């Protein structure tokens, strides 16, 4: 199996490696930087969410204010403001969304999970290319 990296080492059949092929690591580094930036952005923006929510006034959800911290489906206790906040300012509907880096971990895990499931599925359903022709 070949990866992006293999290309830069082996060189390509045409001998005309493009900028991208010669700088795979730059691309990967860029991706890592972007990932970190998205995490920092969450920290940076978090206080601003709270401010916006206190400014917003209308009550969106039908949940009882007193019981909102009890289940995972409800908003955080400290976020009473977000509870009253307009939904269009803050899309968080579940407490778990406000855990730091939740979407990041989730995206990573879901991706890996899907790929592993696919690999496993191959054991069951993979046949020769001309399976239906024979």
């Amino acid at each position, binding site marked *: 199996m070949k990866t992006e990296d293999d290309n830069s080492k082996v060189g*390509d059949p045409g001998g005309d490696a493009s900028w991208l092929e010669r700088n795979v690591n730059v691309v990967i580094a860029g991706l890592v930087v972007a990932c970190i930036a998205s995490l920092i952005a969450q920290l940076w923006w978090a206080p601003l*969410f709270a401010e916006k929510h206190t400014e917003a006034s209308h009550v969106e*959800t039908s949940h009882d204010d007193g019981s909102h911290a009890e289940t995972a489906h409800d908003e955080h206790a400290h976020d009473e403001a977000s509870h009253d906040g307009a939904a*269009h300012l803050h899309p968080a509907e579940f407490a778990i969304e406000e855990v730091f880096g939740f979407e990041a971990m989730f*995206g990573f895990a879901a*991706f890996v*999970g899907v790929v592993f499931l696919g690999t496993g*599925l191959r054991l069951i359903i*993979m046949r020769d290319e001309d399976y239906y022709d024979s």
Partner: protein
Amino acid sequence: MIHNFPPGLIMVLGALLLPFLGQRLSAWGALVLSSLSLFAFWTTPDLHAVTLNLFGQDLNIVRIDRWSWIFGLVFHLAAITASIYALHVKDTKQHVAGMIYAGSAIAACCAGDLITLFVCWELTAVSSVFLIWANGTETAYRSGMRYLIIQVTSGVLLLSGAIIHFQQTGSLVFENFLGLEPGQRGAIGDLEFGPLLILIAFGIKGAFPLLHNWLQDSYPNGTATGTVFLSAFTTKLAIYSLARGFAGLEELIWIGCAMTLFPIVFAVIENDLRRVLAYSLNNQLGFMVVGIGIGTELALNGTAAHAFCHIIYKSLLFMSMGAVLHRVGTTKATELGGLHKSMPFTTIFCMIGGGAIAGFPLLSGFVSKSMIISAAGHEQMFPVWIILLIASAGVMEHSGIKIPFFAFFAHDSGKRVKEAPWNMLTAMAIASFCCIAIGVYYQPLYDMLPFETHYEPYTAAHVIMQFQLLLFAALAFVFLMKANLYPAEIRSTNLDTDWVYRRLLPRLIGHIGKIVQFLDSLFRFACLAMIKRFLNWLAKSCGARGWLGSTWSTSSMAFWAAVLLGVFLILYYL
């Protein structure tokens, strides 16, 4: 005047004139037809309805409201871009089929009654199969046959359901079969038998789980340009019909969830990139079906918006793979790679399509998909919300990364081809422009949605979270590649439900045939043996030497006559 005819009729009737234009001009004729049709559609007054009395039955052949408007419009846009994309094709029958197909799909989404819907429904099936057969191979022919049988079955179910519904209610009007308003929900148990059949008909065309495999079977077998047409209409017509007839049907939420999940796993291991796109298409339909099941105004708006954006970016992706097929001759990942050097524009357009379907902010998928996910959140449906997030990461896997990566980057296949023809590039550029334009300036799209909305997709939190999800999913790809854990592309066939009717049923029928043949031969053998024995016995007993056939002596005759008389005498005295 023109507005008294079903929209799309210009394309359907005009298509019949295309053969007279000759091979070269017919492609341009198709483009003119779809543009004319768009013009006619654009000038149709709002809330327009035309009723036709046929056999004593009022048929609402034209019904333009907000639902039909948004679908009709995007169907026109898809038809025009697909026509531009196919300008180089000299095969007139493909243009004729494409125009009839697009026109009947447009007419179907503007049909106000079930009979008109049925007629257009079947017309889309019959016309579109020629786009598969046009490929000319034996595989395409067989695949097209399966496609046709399944699509026509869907139509027959629709007609049966409509007739039963008419007998029960006396109405053929196509509206919500549960009588639900947006925000209300009903269960499948509330459906009568007629609407249930109609639901199955829609489900077949909408590629519900287990009814889905015609999609992955046939689309990769279409021609490079034909599949662009195919990807736009059939399934979205089903989505439109579901939204119109079954919005708020709770079971659709779970059907939709299943639809978003299973295709992403199949897409990981599929080698044919156009088949990967077919699985991806199936997964995207799942999002829309979830939206229909949730049935709130926000969810239904999300479904309509997502269908609109989806048609454009999915066409774009199929166009980019069509360009690869056109130049390289295959879309199998094992044969591709490194094409970004020779097809740089196609690469960029493909990546824009991939970004749009994955839902990167500033591209169209973001402003539509987030509506459906938010709708699930608003309804406090935690499992549904989680499933849609997993599905979003899955979309990133198969369409955002796998398609562009294995076609244009990955290991260099050494193939050096020409860039796609100008008309293909133009069509892809238009679609890419739409993906970006809708992502940046989404208000015109939101204004077109079936219900008024104040939804705001670009909140800081939402954008950041989406970036986290997608970027870390991409990071996971890099990690898996580096760790050699990403499954290598292998030339293979992956079994799906089509195995049931391509292998299991033929085999079962073969076995049953053999058993019947065996029993039949056993029975024949037994009968023949019995007849033979009877004949033998006859020959033996009645032949010259048989005891019945031989001459008997006079004394034995006199003896038996005496016995007979004796018996008679005894009986007489009794």
